[in-house]
């Protein structure tokens, strides 16, 4: 038996679509990086960064293009390692190293699962070539479950599904912002690509049971992470959690697609998959935009703690406008791209239900849809919090007052991304219909000509612009008559304004913390003496309850194992001797 090392490339729609996402998003991010990296020139090597960045991008393209599981894994590992090196780029900060190592471990766990998965596929089909596997997926029929589970664990760990997400909120804030933009905007999508490739294409669709597993995992991820996102003060942490939330959204819509597919409701299934794919693209765009925006804030002020920021709209106006577009997109404000895919997701949730016969399925889907609606509400909440606290109002600390100038290249990168966001939103019907045509053709191998959505959005966008223009003209006319005057903000006649007399990030989300605080381990700290100490503390419950015991256990075990060493040669020899005897006994017994 030999391994098939035919280095063909995948040229089907799925690969091309994801390559499009990678290139489409990485161009503006690379432009952005040109300015952003300048900050590191003093302390770190820029050449190293660029080479790793290019390698990272190439490896992602490699993953998407590879038509062979071995090749796939090779590129996958290169992608993991380069991204690890990029995460720990600021290696002088100990905190970054720590989170980098967590990322490294998680990404390798992911790799391990994927290895198992491809191993199983190889075992049952004897093939590593994706096209050939597709042709003989009937061999896999009885073993789909185990492969699906490994795919979910492997790709889920990379994409950040709960409970495998803890690396996300650690690695993203540690990485330089252009890298977090790429990791969140693109790399997570590569994991989604892998999942779609394996589950939809290689396995040719799985049973609805797995669809429900996926749906629930996705919904749970979205719920858990959005609440955690809401409670964060660190912009990049908030965005990282929000990425996990969007991944949850994508995975749940994929789950819905699987369910519908296995129930032979192809039309709805295509719609769901289309919504998922389109959301991949859109999330990539607006999340990169928001991460680059966070990067600009970090560049300009040196902090990413929302409670220290504020009033940035005055100093970095262009950035703040771009980020406003990103915020509106993530908040699903029409006619931006977030709205286009989010409304499609919810529509497909409702539409799919009508066709399903089983009431229990419908119930579960409706409940998941409702939960996702809550998530959408939370997404707007956290988006408004992130934007409003960071950019609006007055500076909350000295850091936010003394601002570095932002290089033009960074602004250009962000401008391109915001332009994408608008274009993808306004012209969404074309894109959706385009994607759906090809998903039908290439993934479901069915000929369906579908128009899920009319060209209403375009019409409405035009109307919206016309109305805004009209009202602006009216306002201009009115303004000519009545002057505009600028005064201090009215503070009830109290004129001793201090920066901590405006809402803080913690305060903004406290009402929600009261209801959902337990999800984020919310705790309040109040000490009232001569001065007042008010603090909120949050931690990732899953990380603390699930990961820390494991880490502690491993530390404990390794601590014990260390004691075996005494540095005396006799002891080592005796170890060897004992081992030898035991193995001889075992061999004799067993054979």
């Amino acid at each position: 038996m030999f391994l098939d090392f035919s280095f063909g490339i995948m040229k089907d729609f799925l690969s091309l679509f994801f390559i499009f996402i990678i290139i489409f998003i990485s161009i503006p991010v690379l432009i952005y990086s040109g300015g952003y990296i300048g900050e590191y020139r003093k302390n770190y090597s820029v050449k190293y960064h660029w080479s790793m960045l290019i390698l990272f991008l190439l490896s992602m393209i490699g993953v998407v293009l590879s038509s062979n599981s071995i090749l796939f894994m090779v590129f996958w590992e290169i992608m993991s390692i380069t991204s690890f090196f990029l995460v720990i780029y600021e290696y002088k900060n100990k905190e970054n190293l720590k989170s980098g190592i967590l990322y490294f471990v998680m990404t390798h766990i992911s790799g391990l699962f994927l290895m198992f998965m491809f191993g199983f596929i190889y075992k049952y089909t004897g093939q590593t070539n994706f096209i050939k596997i597709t042709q003989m997926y009937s061999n896999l029929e009885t073993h789909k479950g185990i492969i699906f589970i490994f795919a979910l664990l492997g790709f889920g760990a990379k994409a950040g599904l709960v409970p495998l997400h803890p690396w996300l909120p650690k690695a993203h804030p540690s990485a330089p912002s252009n890298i977090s933009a790429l990791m969140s905007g693109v790399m997570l999508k590569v994991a989604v690509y892998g999942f779609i490739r394996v589950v939809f294409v290689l396995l040719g669709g799985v049973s609805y049971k797995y669809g429900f597993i996926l749906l629930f995992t996705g919904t749970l991820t979205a719920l858990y992470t959005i609440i955690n996102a809401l409670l964060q003060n660190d912009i990049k942490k908030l965005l990282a959690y929000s990425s996990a939330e969007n991944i949850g959204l994508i995975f749940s819509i994929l789950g819905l697609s699987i369910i519908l597919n296995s129930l032979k409701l192809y039309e709805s299934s295509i719609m769901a998959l289309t919504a998922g794919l389109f959301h991949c693209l859109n999330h990539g765009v607006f999340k990169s935009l928001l991460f680059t925006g966070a990067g600009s804030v970090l560049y300009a002020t040196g902090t990413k703690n929302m409670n220290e920021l504020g009033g940035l709209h005055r100093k970095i106006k262009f950035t703040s406008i771009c980020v406003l577009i990103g915020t509106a997109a993530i908040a699903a404000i029409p006619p931006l791209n977030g709205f286009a895919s989010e409304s499609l997701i919810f529509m497909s949730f409702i539409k799919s239900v009508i066709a399903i016969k089983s009431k229990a399925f419908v119930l579960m889907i409706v409940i998941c849809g409702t939960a996702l609606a809550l998530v959408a509400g939370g997404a707007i909440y956290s988006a408004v919090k992130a934007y409003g606290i960071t950019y609006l109002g007055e500076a909350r600390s000295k850091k936010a007052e003394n601002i570095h100038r932002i290089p033009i290249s960074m602004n250009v990168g962000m401008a391109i991304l915001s332009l994408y966001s608008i274009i993808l939103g306004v012209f969404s019907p074309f894109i959706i219909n385009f994607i759906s045509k090809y998903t039908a053709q290439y993934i479901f191998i069915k000929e369906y000509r579908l128009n899920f959505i009319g060209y209403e959005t375009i019409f409405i966008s035009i109307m919206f612009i016309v109305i805004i223009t009209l009202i602006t003209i009216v306002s201009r006319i009115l303004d000519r008559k009545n002057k505009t005057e600028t005064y201090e903000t009215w503070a009830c006649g109290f004129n001793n304004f201090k920066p901590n007399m405006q809402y803080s990030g913690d305060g903004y989300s406290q009402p929600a913390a009261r209801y959902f605080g337990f999800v984020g381990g919310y705790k309040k700290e109040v000490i009232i003496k001569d001065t007042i100490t008010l603090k909120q503390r949050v931690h990732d419950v899953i990380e603390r309850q699930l990961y820390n015991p494991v880490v502690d256990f491993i530390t404990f075990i390794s601590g014990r194992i260390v004691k075996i060493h005494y540095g005396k040669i006799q002891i080592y020899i005796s170890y060897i001797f004992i081992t030898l005897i035991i193995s001889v006994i075992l061999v004799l017994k067993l054979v």
Partner: protein
Amino acid sequence: MKIEDLKKDIEKLGFPIKIEIKNKNELYVDIDKDDVKKILETMFKKYKLYFSGQFCLQDKDFIINVILTDRKNGYLIILRYKTENEIVSLQGIANQSNLFEREISDLFGLEIADGEDKRNIVKHEIWENGIHPLRKDFLYGQRVKDLCETEEYKFKEVITDGGFQIPVGPVHAGIIEPGHFRFSVIGELIENLEIRLMYKHRGIEKICENVDLNKLNLIFERVAGESSAAYGEAFAQLIEKISDFKVCESIMALRVILLELERIYNFLDDIAGICVDVGFSYPAKKFGYMSELIHQLCERITGSRFLRNAIIPYGSNIDFTEIQREDVVKTIDIVEKRFNEIVEMTLNTVSFLDRVEHTGIVEKAIAKELNMTGVVARASGIQYDVRKSFPYEVYRQLKKSINFEEIGGVFERYNVKIAEIRDAFKYIKTSLTLIKGDVEKKKQWIDIESGKEGFAVVETVKGELIVFARTGENNKMDRVYFKTPSFTNWNGLTYAVLGEIVPDFPLCNKSFNMSYSENDR
């Protein structure tokens, strides 16, 4: 225990003291400056006295007076000590004494010797430096210039970056007097509240020293517009006490009618305010309407909507004949009937009860610690009513029991206020029977020799009002001191809102409804 026995008992304590009884129920104890703390502690322990206030007199030296009250027997015990330039701080022994000490320190320029809290209370940042308006060398009529020389008032600051402060006031959205509230929050829950008042200090105590006694009742009534009858009563009581005069029962009953009318419209406004602040507009409008009816009644019988210039010493400044009597009876009947209906309605409305029950709780221990008096204290379970402890006019016959509730929340204050209104209806009706014949308007010249002093204690709508006065030359007062109920009760609010959410603050505030102008004397 009779007051003579008390005097003997105190003499036995063994401190170098001088004791004097004046005006039947006032015990003046002259003590040494160094003994203050010790004597005060013994007083609290041995005689279960309550600390009610502290004020300063200026002779050659300054004389600090500590007012203690015996709520059971109705005595006032005044500890006096002479000092040149500093006050012995009672902070830690007598609760809330910091307020009084800071006030004295601001107005007389004395140092607080060893107290923790020495912040300005009357003086705001805008005041010029070195000004002490109540000193005799500060000329009457002299203005305090706006020089912004006084040091900045230190609030408790939030130091961490997650928490923040909400400054509210001094200019408010509604028609409210000035006051600054500083909430320390991290979101909605109130973790700490500081109140700063006295934005419009009027110097009434100084004015009182320079107005002829015959016109002084007008000044008294202006201390707090909402309880002008009670302040007028305090003045009448004071003058009658000093000059040992007793008016006839009809006039006494008439005064009670006016006082209770004032209580009715005030508490009607208060409960209307509570309804407004929870957005329950129907009863709010109705209560407001009833309050307006009472106001109009007041105008018909006294010529003033706020019952001003009606109660004067030695007599009555209004006629009260059969016409007025019928008017009162008729109006009260109409209002009482409507009132009971609307109250019943509010008590049956679940959404209203949900808002007011278990909101803004001041526990009994805290209320005691803050020396709270009046309705708010009675809602917290403190059974103290001046009308019962220091009965004046015909209250000895009327006031048999005290309305009180246990928990001390907004709902309890609401209930106590309702009970007070109902009581007021009852007292008015009984008082009407006590008025024999018509009362004629009769004003008598007041002329009192100098050096007389005395206290008047009155239950205003807010609580216990203690007025001290000492007569001086030229038929004028030498010193007038008001211990107003709001002065101490305000701080109850800071405890009531702890742990409540920010949107519930206006409700708690309205249920207290303390007076700003009583502070800005």
